């Protein structure tokens, strides 16, 4: 198995960049921090006293404190067994708000 033609995942055309099926503790902590940052932005706009439709909709979102762990780290997916997949499978998930999932799933 030595030499230039040794078998490796790259040579065999295998999957090299593996996405773990669940988030690590650190990535979960980072996710919570991001959720809190978004909460802080919504709270700052609310504290300004401005009234607008976007604010009403933003206040409907559950805060990081109110969210169950299931919603923080996974999202609804119709294709997965159990109807859930890791939130890190969603493209751009660190810059999107994916807080609300279908009721009952």
């Amino acid at each position, binding site marked *: 198995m030595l030499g230039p033609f040794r078998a490796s995942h790259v040579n065999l055309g295998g999957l090299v960049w593996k996405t773990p099926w669940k988030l690590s503790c650190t990535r979960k902590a980072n996710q919570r921090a*991001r959720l809190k*940052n*978004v909460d*802080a*932005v*919504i709270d*700052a*706009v609310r*504290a*300004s*006293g*401005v*009234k*607008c*439709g*976007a*604010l009403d*909709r*933003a206040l409907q979102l559950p805060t990081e404190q109110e969210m169950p762990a299931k919603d923080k780290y996974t999202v609804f997916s119709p294709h997965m067994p159990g109807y859930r997949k890791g939130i890190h499978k969603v493209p*751009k998930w*660190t*810059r*999107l*708000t994916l807080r609300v999932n279908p009721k009952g799933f």
Partner: protein
Amino acid sequence: MLSTHFKITLRRSAISLGDRKKDTLKSLGLHRRMQTVYHCHSPDIAGKILFVKELLEVENVPEELVRTKQQQRQDRMGARGYQVVGEKRIAEW
């Protein structure tokens, strides 16, 4: 002190989030990360902030603390020149 302005800092870029989000940042006057702009409290600004809420850091500030671009630059710069804080003398001479 009654706050009248939003202090908005772009913390995360809108790369590949689509033109609507990119253009929203542009209309807020944000062109690069860590840039800070100030806007009056108004519903249209609030709506824009909430549209890109994942990318920003927002604070409410009173009018006295609103800084222009030049003032922000001045704040970052150190004082010019130098100050003599002491003199080294040889006392025995």
